[in-house]
């Protein structure tokens, strides 16, 4: 039996097992038959193993280049490195679907194992939901998008299409698994909520058991979002990390409600509050994962971030309707059963803060959904007509002038930033204040006193940070304008625009969040030390283990605050310049000078791409070559040549006469600019003729224009020599440049330069305009070389960009460049990107702490832990 036939058989058996498990589980739950529920549990576990077998089979087909299978032929080829072969598993719709099924079946099996021996209706319902969800995706696979589908008659192509170059990047290759796992894992808390609802078990035990699953799903979703942002920042070359693209929005939606769910679960755990919210959020989050998959299908289809038709659409639409109807109906039926144990006490309680947080997050969900769907919906003339009627009526009532909408509404990133900005700041404010608020169990005098102290410290830190930031800006303004410091600060403050205000507010609240968390840690650890006489380190460990929810939560909040600082910094003051530069031109940005040195080609046959690289020298304004650099340059120059400081990073070299200067700089430039890409085929000293051919002929296959660029580099030297000094022509058939030189000395210098390799004694050379005996040279050791590039692939029409980034704590220097094809100039996007390191650091903190929290912790250490430990109420 062939791999494809075996795969198809396995998928059918898998579908049979999951369907049977669904039926057994549901009947078992309805009739309270423990044996049926337990049998369904074993079926779910068997399905887990079967899904692994299916995945192994697909992986083998990919690794052995079995091009009879359509998926393998569409997304891989024989030249793909093993790493990208492995990642091609989820590189296309069918593979992503196979990944989805495998992961869901495995997670369901792990969950079934955790409930082994339990035949309760609650477990039965949950098993039913999990198996039904797996069956749903298997049905999609069998009827709409089968990964083991073969070519009908022929044996398949000799080689495959290869993987989309955008996915041939380590970050993008690893981005889908956490993203998809985040989506998939939310099925487990949903199934548990469903089980509790259907069985009417209102003791909150489902939520406690679901906690590691929620944390796992949330952590994965966060990791997926962060890796996606990082990829966008490093690879796409548009200068940002979040573009409010429908796919990004879709991934954000379940993350928002998942975040709310982590907090309602805590509220339910602490005092049986917000039970119905907790259930509802489990339902909404799961629904949003389906919705996200439906909305973009990008996680399930190859075409990145595009809306193309897929056979999956109607299936997803129905799954959305059925899930909403069934879960909504169940929630309504059990509404009274799941009434909270107590009413929420006052608006200053922790639970009130969580409720406010839910409100904010749901508002964000609404805004993001609205902004994502509106452009799509308004493409329909009926919707557009309806909106015009409503807007017209509103205009008639208010008496305003009304211009009807003529085409689909465009919603850009500015709109999202404007609307989400204030909601985000409010959320951050809650993050700072929420942990201070007492929950019902701890409204003691001691707790209140501590809370007030912490609040005061937090507010002081926030105000101090504000004063510091305003002061720094005011000082800069005072120096420039000559005004007094206070007056300049006031002018700066009153002239702030909204992004600036958001930035300051974010900084203040982030500072407060960190201060509150630190203060709570320090106070609790100190109390523990006093009572148990332990070291700081041990006490901190004990305190964390005794109450991971609170202190892990604090750490996650600190990480979130850091990312907010990053976002706010980016929103506040990105400096961006888009310029076209010729060779040796420079642009200044954020106290740096960025000088374009030229382009170079590189060829990477192992990964099937050639690259056009733009070389930039980045120096700080006022940075000058050291005396050692001057000495090194002197050592390689002929005798009788003077070296003195020149303009900025340049040294000015004075030769005794023009011809020696010319010979020297022609040789230097031929070595630095021509030799890396052109080799000397033949030279005729009697006629002063050179024949030059591309050093890497392969590059012409992917970037044919680079031949023109090489000719342009020769001509650039000719232009600096003067009219008629060099004439350049290319062969009609062969890619060869013929160079005729007028002056034998220049000819010799060219030959010498081309024969030698680049001299390490200089980075860039240019003749001084109007003074032919002098040459400007940048020696090595000044500034840093940055080389953004554009990659061209053999098997794809789409080039990809590789940006160059110089990371810094306060700001990154970000360069994306597209060498203008065929000519010597470059289109450069240079940005000063503030606080990016802080953003990634914050994301890392969040991820690491979430991983620790999701891991089962050892039992708490016995003994007195802290004064405020009484806050935790085990139910």
């Amino acid at each position, binding site marked *: 039996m062939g791999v494809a036939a075996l795969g198809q058989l396995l998928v059918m058996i898998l579908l049979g097992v999951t369907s049977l498990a669904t039926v057994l589980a549901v009947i078992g739950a309805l009739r309270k038959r423990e*044996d049926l529920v337990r049998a369904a549990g074993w079926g779910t576990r068997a399905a887990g*193993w079967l899904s692994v077998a299916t995945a192994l089979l697909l992986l083998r087909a990919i690794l052995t280049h079995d091009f009879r299978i359509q998926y393998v032929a569409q997304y891989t080829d024989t030249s793909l490195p093993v790493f990208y072969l492995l990642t091609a598993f989820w590189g296309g719709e069918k593979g992503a679907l196979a990944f989805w099924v495998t992961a869901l079946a495995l997670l369901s099996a792990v969950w079934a194992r955790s409930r082994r*021996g339990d035949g309760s209706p609650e477990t039965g319902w949950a098993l039913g939901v999990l198996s039904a969800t797996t069956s749903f995706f298997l049905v999609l696979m069998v009827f709409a998008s089968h990964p083991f589908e073969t070519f009908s008659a022929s044996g398949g192509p000799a080689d495959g299409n290869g993987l989309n170059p955008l996915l041939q990047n380590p970050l993008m290759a690893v981005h889908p698994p956490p993203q998809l796992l985040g989506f998939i894992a939310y099925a487990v808390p949903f199934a548990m909520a469903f089980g509790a609802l259907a069985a009417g078990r209102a003791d909150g035990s489902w939520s406690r058991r679901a906690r590691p699953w929620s944390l796992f799903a949330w952590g994965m979703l966060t990791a997926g979002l962060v890796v996606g942002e990082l990829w966008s920042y490093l690879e796409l070359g548009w200068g940002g990390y979040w573009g409010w693209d429908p796919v990004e929005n879709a991934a954000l939606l379940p993350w928002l409600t998942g975040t709310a769910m982590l907090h309602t679960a805590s509220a339910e755990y602490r005092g049986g509050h917000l039970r119905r919210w907790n259930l509802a959020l489990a339902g909404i989050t799961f629904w949003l994962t389906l919705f996200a998959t439906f909305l973009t299908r990008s996680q399930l289809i190859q075409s990145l971030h595009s809306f193309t038709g897929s056979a999956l659409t109607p299936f997803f639409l129905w799954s959305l309707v059925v899930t909403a109807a069934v879960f909504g109906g169940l929630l309504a039926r059990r509404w009274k059963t799941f009434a909270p144990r107590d009413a929420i006490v006052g608006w200053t309680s922790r639970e009130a803060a969580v409720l406010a947080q839910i409100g904010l997050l749901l508002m964000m969900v609404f805004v993001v959904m609205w902004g994502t769907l509106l452009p799509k919906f308004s493409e329909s003339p009926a919707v557009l007509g309806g909106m015009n009627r409503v807007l017209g009526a509103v205009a008639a009532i208010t008496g305003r002038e009304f211009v009807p909408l003529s085409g689909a509404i465009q919603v850009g990133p500015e709109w999202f930033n404007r609307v989400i900005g204030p909601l985000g700041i409010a959320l951050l404010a809650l993050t700072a204040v929420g942990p201070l608020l007492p929950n019902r169990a701890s409204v003691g005098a001691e707790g209140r006193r501590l809370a007030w102290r912490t609040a005061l410290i937090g507010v002081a830190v926030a105000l101090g940070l504000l004063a510091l930031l305003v002061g720094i800006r005011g000082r800069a303004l005072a120096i420039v304008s000559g005004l007094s410091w206070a007056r300049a600060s006031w002018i700066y403050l009153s002239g702030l625009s909204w992004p600036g205000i958001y930035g300051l507010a974010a900084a203040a609240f982030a500072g407060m969040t960190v201060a509150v968390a630190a203060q709570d840690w320090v106070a609790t650890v100190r109390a523990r030390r006093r009572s148990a006489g332990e070291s700081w380190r041990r006490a901190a460990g004990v305190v964390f283990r005794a109450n991971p929810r609170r202190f892990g939560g604090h750490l996650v909040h600190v990480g979130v605050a850091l990312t907010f600082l990053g976002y706010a910094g980016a929103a506040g003051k990105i400096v961006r310049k888009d310029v076209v530069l010729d060779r040796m031109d420079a642009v200044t940005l954020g106290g740096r000078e960025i000088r374009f040195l030229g382009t170079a080609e590189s060829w990477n046959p192992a990964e099937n791409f050639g690259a056009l690289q733009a070389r930039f020298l980045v120096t700080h304004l006022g940075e000058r070559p050291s005396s050692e650099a001057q000495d090194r340059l002197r050592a390689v120059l002929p005798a009788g040549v003077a070296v003195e400081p020149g303009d900025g990073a340049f040294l000015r070299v004075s030769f005794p006469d023009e011809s020696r200067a010319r010979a020297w700089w022609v040789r230097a430039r031929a070595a630095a600019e021509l030799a890396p890409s052109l080799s000397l085929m033949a030279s005729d000293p009697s006629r002063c003729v050179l024949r030059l051919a591309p050093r890497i002929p392969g590059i012409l296959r992917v970037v044919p224009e680079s031949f023109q660029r090489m000719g342009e580099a020769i001509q650039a030297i000719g232009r600096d020599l003067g009219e008629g000094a060099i004439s350049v022509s290319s062969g009609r058939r062969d890619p060869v440049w013929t160079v005729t030189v007028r002056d034998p000395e220049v000819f010799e210098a060219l030959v010498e330069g081309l024969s030698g390799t680049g001299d390490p004694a200089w980075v860039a050379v240019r003749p001084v305009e109007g003074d032919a005996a002098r040459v400007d040279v940048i020696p090595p050791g000044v500034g840093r070389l940055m080389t953004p590039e554009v990659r061209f692939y053999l098997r794809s029409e789409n080039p990809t960009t590789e940006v160059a980034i110089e990371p810094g704590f306060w700001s990154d220097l970000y360069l994306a460049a597209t060498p203008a094809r065929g000519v010597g100039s470059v289109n450069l996007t240079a940005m000063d990107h503030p606080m990016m390191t802080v953003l990634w650091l914050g994301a890392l903190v969040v991820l690491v702490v979430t991983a620790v929290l999701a891991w089962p912790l050892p039992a708490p250490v016995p003994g007195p832990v802290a004064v405020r430990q009484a806050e935790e109420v085990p139910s």
Partner: protein
Amino acid sequence: MTGMDVLFALSMAAVLTLAIRDLLRGLGELGPGGRGPGGQA
């Protein structure tokens, strides 16, 4: 047969055996003669 082929065949055999074992255990649970609570490895 390369090493990869052997590894693949062995893992497939192992995974399928485990699947069949779990299916049989599930069948064993069914009916009044089922093994009752705790009937697992």
